[in-house]
């Protein structure tokens, strides 16, 4: 499972230009994927989900290419977080 993180989080992930900004984790649904991202990159999950675990409102999440906001939906090979135009 590959998670692709947005460049806007570089100050928290430690990625820089030139990196592909991915992290390989295990997880069957978005909630467990976010938890696994936190284990791999401490401090990052709180910028993807709010205190209740819901996807932050101006983030887009593509699970295997399909937009979702359901943290309990099953996911397959790739989860991608993108910054929505509405947030900027």
């Amino acid at each position, binding site marked *: 499972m590959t998670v692709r993180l947005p460049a*806007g989080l570089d*100050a928290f992930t430690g990625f820089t230009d030139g990196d592909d900004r991915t992290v390989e984790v295990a997880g069957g649904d978005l909630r467990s994927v976010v938890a696994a991202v936190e284990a791999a990159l401490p401090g990052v999950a709180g*910028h993807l989900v709010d*205190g*209740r675990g819901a996807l932050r409102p101006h983030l887009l999440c593509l699970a295997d290419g399909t937009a979702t906001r359901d943290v309990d939906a099953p996911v397959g090979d790739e989860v991608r977080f993108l910054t929505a135009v509405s947030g900027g």
Partner: protein
Amino acid sequence: MTTIAIGTEKGGFLVDPADGSVSDPLFGGWKVTAFGQSGDQYLAAVGSNWFGPGIHRSTDLDSWTAIDAPPTYGDDPEAKDPEEGDAREVTAIWTFHRDDGWLWAGVEQAGLFRSGDDGRTWESMPGFNDHRTRGDWHPGLGGLCSHRVLTYGDRVYVAASAVGVFRSDDGGATFDLVNDGIPVAGMPPEEVQERPETGYCVHRLEGHPDDPDRLYRQDHMGVFVSDDGGSSWHRRQAGLPAEMGFGFMMAREGSTGRLFTQPLHSDGQRLPVDGDFRIYRSDDDGESWAVSGTGWPEAATHTQVLRGAFDADGDGRVVAGTTAGTVWLTEDAGDTWRQLPGTFPRIGAVALW
């Protein structure tokens, strides 16, 4: 050497006032909402519509590290129905305050947290965060935010908009609202049948280093002073040109005790009176106010200083950042002012380091 830290809508910057040099952007694209110091750590609070709030720390102002766990309400147990959106969320960190025991943080949505390890981990302060009046707390234009914390031993003050000033005498375990003498924002006095307990739009609270009972307050409704720890407030705005005494900043320079504010035309306009960008100064503890010194622009300058966008030290320096992205500095307690080189995004936070 003094470094001026500037927090803007799109990143932070460090300016050396001696030569005007400006650092590369810190946290480019992130809103920098507050600065602080604790132990050997410099602190910068950041926020983003996409990613929420965070805190970075540095010991050398060069290398910054994000903490793993900024203040959070977690999965809010007080929420009546999280799906209806009434759960509390920490959306921004508005202020830091360091005392002998703790590093404190005031946050939006209004809350109080403290840290015993220089900002690495945080604990919620339920005496404030679960206050019995919380259901009556409502945001001002700037949001529902705790924007100021002052402490004197077990005496703790928290200023929250648009709620009011809170005082604790037991180290933050319990809080009382202390706003007697402050008009209710937006309500003509003759129409106020019974004073509400909350709804006071404090813009900035300043303290006296040697007197825990002495407070200075730039409120939505004017400039006020208290001699009794906020139990009563008295208007002190003679000489200010602002309608009602409207403004956002209130600073006290340590070596002289001079007070500083920036009057704005009115709550409706929020512009300098007649385009005259001027910071005003009081040399007599708020009894009277006049334009602070010289150096001000002659051209119309329609900008303002927000509540967190200034700082004062105990060595004559007062710095103010504006919504136009300019920075003004005095190094002689307000006798002369100069604009520093550089133009930045809208400035919301400033620190003298």
